[in-house]
């Protein structure tokens, strides 16, 4: 970025608003981690930061650098793409680990695997 380039006012406002909104969503998600009570509830909170939160910040970044360099800057799309692809994998693994442990110890009122294997076998036998 050369010192003689200056960001027009409209771009500065749009960028600031988007980055602030994204950061607020990430903060709310973090507050949710603190305030929600059980593990299964808490796992919902960080997705605010990883979806709309990161989305706003990336769009802000695209606006800022596109206006400043007067050419489209699009590599932020990669961050969005790989974020959407990888975050669910981590979350699902965490939830499944918690579910396995809770079922094993019989805690936190988690539902059993459904339907129980025994009734499934009975049903099949009845059909034969």
């Amino acid at each position, binding site marked *: 970025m050369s010192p003689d380039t200056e960001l027009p006012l409209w771009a500065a406002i749009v960028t600031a608003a988007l980055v602030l909104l994204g950061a607020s969503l990430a903060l709310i998600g973090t507050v949710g981690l603190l305030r929600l009570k059980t593990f299964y509830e808490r796992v*919902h909170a960080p997705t605010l930061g990883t979806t709309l939160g990161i989305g706003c910040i990336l769009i802000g970044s695209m606006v800022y650098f596109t206006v400043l360099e007067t050419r489209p800057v699009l590599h932020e799309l990669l961050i969005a793409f790989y974020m959407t692809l990888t975050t669910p994998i981590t979350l699902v693994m965490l*939830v499944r680990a918690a579910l396995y442990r809770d079922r094993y110890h019989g805690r936190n009122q988690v539902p059993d*695997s459904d339907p129980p294997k025994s009734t499934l076998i009975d049903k099949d036998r009845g059909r034969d």
Partner: protein
Amino acid sequence: MTRWLPYPRISALLLVTWLLFNQSLAPAQILLGVLLAVSLPWLLARLQPVPGRPRRPLTILRLAVRVLLDIIRSNIAVALIILRPGMRGRTAGFVRIPLTMRNPNALAVLACIITATPGTVWVDYEPDTGMLMIHVLDLIDENEWIHTITQRYETLLLEIFE
């Protein structure tokens, strides 16, 4: 073609990724990108992905727009739940949803959609019965969730993958 590039579309994606990362179309970067695009898919082949390509680009676009809108909507909903003082009058819970689709790729996409949307998380899936279990942060009506997942997402995924 297929002998050198077992997954042409993955190769194309890798090349575009590399060039975007480096913000450059210099011949050296293109050469490096092509090298990665040709070599990395061989590692993917070792994972033995389930064959089957998504069809109907228009349906994919429809699904993407729908998911995007749902993500924005539930971001607002979950933010309001977290900020509500005391957080009373809300029950979280598990919901069982009978799925008709069995395609592993379609199920993987559904898992990403459900988990990426704030307020819902993919929890468990029984391959024998097709029974999916999700956890919902603000559970009011179970049937509404069954309807949402099967009508809003599953019907489109069935069109795309089966």
